[in-house]
């Protein structure tokens, strides 16, 4: 296959491509440019998502108090600066949608799969550059539609990011379930198409375009993670697409897939025989794998960055791959733990409790392997390394409470409370975000040929790290006290009055944590132009992407694609002068290849 890749490269790339502004920066088919496009689109969506969370956090802490920010940003939805209850739910909904799909799926996976798969496996580009371009532009289109949906007259979708019908199906149940929900569904359908095209491309590229010597067991863990993520995406995203299509049919064409026996606003609707529980099954069949689609790439990035910055091989390479495979497999049979109290048969609840708690085992293996990777290392505390360590910390803290939520008996009382919010934000929200930041700090030189400012990086990390715990740790406790999520205000429940001060503390941490991201944005955008020029291999890493020139060229390597002779983790290997041996260095005579 690699031979084919070489001839292909000589036909297409190298000498005779004349690039215009449009083909280079806009309709680019170059994976490196597409990665940057994903990253910048994801960043813009991320800013919108975080701003929304800061607004609804202010409403929770200071309920129904006038706020100039609301007046300025929400317009008619904040008469006299007081946030409206409908827009509160809309903000919560769109925040969830944007962060999960647009930032942590497309922004994370889209950026780093595109950037690193060809570079780290030794390919000139993705298997299909054209599909790759289409994939990005579909994502861009879906982002635009999602943003447009914010300006709909009756309000954007507001049924929660899980859009359970009938609430999401009936415009009379909620303003946001009209045009806002239609646009949400259209946007998501396009998003899924984009994601599927991307995933297929990643899978084909990893399987077919590896350079000579790059066997599957020599792949960096990043590639393993992206590969398995793509497989999960291909398996589960179509199910969400089908759910979305059936919901569109129910909404617009009078079918009854998810609706039955409804009396609303004084009239009986014609729907008969459907069930909202069916929708929950379809949604979570994607929804749960989705959290692994979000977290696995972050795990891959962190594994790579930790090994490189510890100047040590990743501990238990094969166990890491095995645990990725185990997590991927289990992720498709645990969705029911979101539905213990949905009215499904309690026996199913037992089965899902069993499979869910099993996931803790590969997760524990990964966590211990990361910790052992640090042991007796020579840790280079670059910002990327700090975010990787932060990732392991929040992944453990957030993951551990999963054994409470995954336990059906315990879930009864904490289901849909702030305990859940705390859990998933730490384990997949913050962790995946840390993974993404780690990746950006680490591969920024590869993307832009310049370095990010490390001191700004340190400030960014430490303030973010403190705020992340400050926001989500106390949240577990108000959840255990029974405070439901998605309440516009708790003032109708004197029962919760003693939790109000906790909410204020959480909000202050959230505001500081949100605002400090400006430091990062400043660093990111300024460094593109004014950053310190990067050297070819600034982190002294072993993987193939650091053998390409700093200046981007079509086809990645000016000459032949390098061959690979060893695994990606020969750091501090005895018998070598340097503390890293690139994958392109042939084994010395009598040298044993260690990869297991």
């Amino acid at each position, binding site marked *: 296959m690699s031979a084919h890749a070489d001839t292909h490269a000589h036909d297409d790339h190298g000498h005779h491509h004349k690039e215009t502004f449009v083909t280079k920066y806009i309709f680019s088919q170059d994976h490196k440019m597409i990665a940057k496009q994903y990253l910048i689109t994801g960043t813009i969506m991320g800013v919108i998502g975080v701003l929304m969370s800061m607004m609804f956090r202010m409403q929770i802490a200071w309920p129904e108090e006038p706020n100039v920010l609301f007046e300025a940003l929400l317009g008619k939805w904040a008469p006299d600066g007081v946030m409206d209850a409908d827009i509160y739910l809309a903000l919560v909904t769109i925040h969830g949608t944007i962060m999960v799909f647009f930032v942590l799926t497309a922004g994370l996976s889209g950026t780093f799969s595109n950037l690193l798969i060809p570079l780290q496996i030794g390919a000139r580009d993705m298997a299909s550059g054209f599909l790759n371009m289409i994939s990005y532009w579909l994502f861009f289109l879906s982002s635009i539609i999602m943003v447009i949906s914010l300006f709909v007259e009756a309000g954007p979708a507001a049924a929660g990011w899980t859009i359970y019908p009938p609430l999401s199906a009936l415009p009379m149940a909620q303003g946001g379930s009209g045009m806002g929900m239609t646009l949400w569904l259209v946007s998501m359908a396009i998003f899924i198409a984009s994601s599927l095209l991307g995933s297929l491309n990643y899978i084909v590229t990893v399987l077919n375009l590896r350079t000579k010597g790059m066997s599957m067991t020599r792949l960096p863990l990043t590639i393993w993670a992206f590969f398995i993520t793509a497989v999960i995406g291909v398996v589960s995203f179509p199910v969400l697409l089908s759910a979305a299509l059936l919901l569109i049919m129910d909404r617009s064409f009078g079918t009854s897939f998810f609706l039955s026996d409804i009396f609303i606003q004084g009239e009986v609707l014609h729907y008969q025989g459907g069930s909202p529980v069916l929708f929950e099954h379809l949604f979570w069949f994607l929804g749960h794998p989705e959290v692994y689609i979000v977290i696995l790439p972050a795990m891959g990035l962190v594994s790579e960055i930790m090994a490189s910055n510890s100047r040590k091989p990743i501990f*238990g390479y094969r166990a890491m791959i095995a645990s990725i495979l185990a997590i991927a497999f289990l992720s498709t049979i645990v969705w029911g733990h979101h539905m213990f109290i949905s009215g499904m048969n309690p026996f199913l609840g037992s089965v899902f409790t069993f499979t869910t708690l099993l996931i*803790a085992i590969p997760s524990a293996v990964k966590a211990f392997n990361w910790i052992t990777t640090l042991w007796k290392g020579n840790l280079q505390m670059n910002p990327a390394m700090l975010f990787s360590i932060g990732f392991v910390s929040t992944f453990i803290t957030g993951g551990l409470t999963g054994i*409470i939520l995954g336990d059906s008996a315990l879930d009864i009382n904490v289901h849909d409370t702030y305990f859940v919010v705390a859990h998933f934000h730490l384990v997949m929200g913050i962790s995946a975000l840390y993974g993404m930041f780690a990746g950006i700090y680490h591969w920024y030189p590869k993307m832009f040929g310049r370095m990010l400012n490390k001191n700004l990086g340190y400030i960014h990390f430490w303030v973010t790290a403190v705020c992340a715990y400050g926001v989500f740790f106390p949240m577990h406790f108000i959840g255990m006290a029974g405070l*439901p999520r998605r*309440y516009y205000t708790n003032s109708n429940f004197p029962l919760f009055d003693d939790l109000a001060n906790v909410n204020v503390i959480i909000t202050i941490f959230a505001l500081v944590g949100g605002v400090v991201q400006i430091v990062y944005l400043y660093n990111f955008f300024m460094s593109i132009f004014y950053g310190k020029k990067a050297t070819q291999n600034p982190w002294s890493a072993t993987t193939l992407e650091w053998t390409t020139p700093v200046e981007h060229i079509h086809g990645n390597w000016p000459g032949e694609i390098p061959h690979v002779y060893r695994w990606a983790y020969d750091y*501090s290997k005895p018998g070598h002068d340097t503390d890293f041996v690139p994958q392109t260095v042939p084994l010395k005579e009598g040298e044993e290849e260690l990869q297991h």
Partner: protein
Amino acid sequence: MTALLTIIVLVFILVAIWQMVKIFDLAQARSENTQVANDKDNTLNGYLMMGFLAFIYIITIVCFVKWGDLPLLSNSASEHGPTIDNLMIISLVIIFIVQTITQFLLHYFAFKYKGEKGKKALFFADNNKLEAIWTIIPVIVLAGLIIYGLNTWINIMGVDESEDPLIVELYAQQFNWKARYAGADNTLGKANVRLIDIDRANILGLDESDPNAQDDVITTELHLPVGKPVLFKMRSQDVLHSAYMPHFRAQMNCVPGMITQFGFTPTVTTAEMRQNPDMVEKVANINKIRVENSKPLVAKGEEPLDRYEFDYLLLCNKICGKSHYNMQMKIIVETQEEYDAWIKQQKEFKNSLIN
């Protein structure tokens, strides 16, 4: 206003940080400036890692001390409640131990092995024994939790019809709750939203021809006799709702088009719970807060907040629309005699219809 001020202050702090970093960079300019961590960075961040470990421990302790023993966590009011609470406490203890140890190892290693020029890391790629250890230990712990958890779950969800539970329907609509008691026959009459006739006050869509429906009683408050098993049948007329009764460790979704169920036995009456020392303290604290919060209201010439008295509550815990945040029903657990007296005062369905 406070929010705006906070934001302005934050922006100023940020500007200050930028300026400081600029100075820092300029000061470093003469030495090597590669933006790659040097020994000084490694040392500083290594110490900060230990500081961060301390921060995690402190926030854990503060949370547990200040908010860890909420009356909700230790005073359940149903027969199965203590089994959930025990399992919860066991899980929390396991989590606490694992969290404390792993966070220590992670941050301590980050501090201990912070990089130094010229140092070489240990080439340690693999160890099957270690992998086996941290596979098997979680397997054992989780096996225990799974067995305990499933046992508890099956006990809670299994309905023992032989105990002759009191049958009560919980009926959800945007944005309030109704309860329907089955009457003397303890059998709920047939119902469907298609039979709703607002003009005749048949608001829950009962089948008027069903003999079982005649003695049903519809109320807006949920009264339960203490010590008697109750089996709730949940219905919703419009969107998903969730009947959440946190004090009883009970929750079940209400799904349009189907009937879901959840059963429990209340063990503590409302009057007894109001006397519970933990609850007395909590209520006193809440009232102190409410008095404090009333001051600005009174200053503006508005009514002060009502005094809070403890009551069990049924909350909606599944997003259901605009007023989701205020969809509640009072639950009163009382002695059998009190309950009998109350139910006798309620109108039976056949007498509540408007002809």
